[in-house]
């Protein structure tokens, strides 16, 4: 029940629904909780509802930051 997965919106459907895809699996989800859902948005799906969008630029920025925080090339003793 607490499982939430990131999926990509591949088709917008009538009545606040959309087709979302992850790893080739497609699922109909509700996008009524999103402001302006758009094709190719990455979203976090929870019990059949998209709760929020995942911002790819922020994801990249987080990866860059944690790469910078990580010790260079060393392995823990």
């Amino acid at each position, binding site marked *: 029940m*607490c499982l939430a997965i990131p999926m990509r919106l591949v088709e917008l459907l009538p009545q606040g629904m959309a087709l979302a895809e992850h790893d080739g699996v497609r699922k109909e989800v509700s996008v009524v*909780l999103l402001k302006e859902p758009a094709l190719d948005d990455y979203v976090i799906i*929870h*019990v059949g*509802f998209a*709760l929020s969008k995942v911002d790819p630029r*922020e994801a990249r*920025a987080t990866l860059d930051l944690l790469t910078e925080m990580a010790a*260079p090339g060393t392995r*823990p003793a």
Partner: protein
Amino acid sequence: MMRFVDKFRDRDLARRLAYTIAAEARPEQTYTLMEFCGGHTHAIARYAIQEMLPPVLRMAHGPGCPVCVLPAARVDAAIAIAMQTDVTLCTYGDVLRIPGCRHDSLLTAKAAGADVRIVYSPADALALAQALPGRRVVFFAVGFETTTPPTAVVLLDARQHGISNFAVFCNHVLTPPAIAAIFDTPEDDRSRPCLDGVLGPAHVSTVIGSDAFARFPRDYAMPVVVSGFEPLDILQSILMLVRQINRGSAEIENQFSRGVTAEGNRIAIDLMAQTFETRETFEWRGLGFLPRSALRLRPEFAAWDAEKISPPPPAAAEEPHTACACAEILRGRANPADCRLFGAACTPDTPVGACMVSSEGACAAEWAYGRARRANEKERA
């Protein structure tokens, strides 16, 4: 195509982050960090994150597993609803095995003839009500702020479409009051954990926003980092907490900036406000009654409120197993392996305590991922 998930599981980066944490954690002090959310507990066990951390740093499990904290009295009320002959009770799969006061569950009720069905989404329960006009379909709603907006959406749909054979048995609970309850435990109380920082839940925060946790740094001088659920998210958040602790600051930081904003999801918050109001008090398994910690339907939705339609019977006295350590584990005071019942009387097939019932529970996570690790340790020793 972007593969976020793979990148946030990069093994080499994880090792290097762990090395940075070990280098920056001061050996002369201890760092006890509580991960509130069961999703974090699960990921920490699955990716053996505790084993990557220096000995001075301990992760304490929190009460953020809605299945684990659902009290036996509410399970009994759901069973009583399900046993009514005209009712079809729908709920999430991991709710079915939660033990009630007399150690029965919705699963045993189903075996005894009750019409109990697993749904993936509350929308499925509403669709079932439309498909079965002769039945009263009750959705047993459980969960934190992540599952609450979907319940709000189906309630509004039921009202809009005049679906009168649908009702919600509401057990939605709130994250910030549960964290506050742990900090508000009196200093001299043995059950009060000594915490240095909190890993905040990302998915809850997509809805309520990271600012919902701002009172913990402000009122309790407690550093909080809202963290994603991938191993690198968790390690980065732990490092952010270690850095806050080292410089003596207490702030709210948002590691999961790719999905969480300070203010949260305005649409979801508005829909919840239209449909729910805060209860004066609500019981949490292991934590007792916590003020203003749960939601009920607003009076306008009485026609869809299972508690109004058939009030739950008075709660029977719970008979907790005297050796069960769940209450201590939910407060971050004990680890699953500290419990005498763990892995002996209490397993996922025969759960005694709530932390073993849900796969997100601390004991179930330790059972699933910890045994192989301990076997390895024994072999190496």
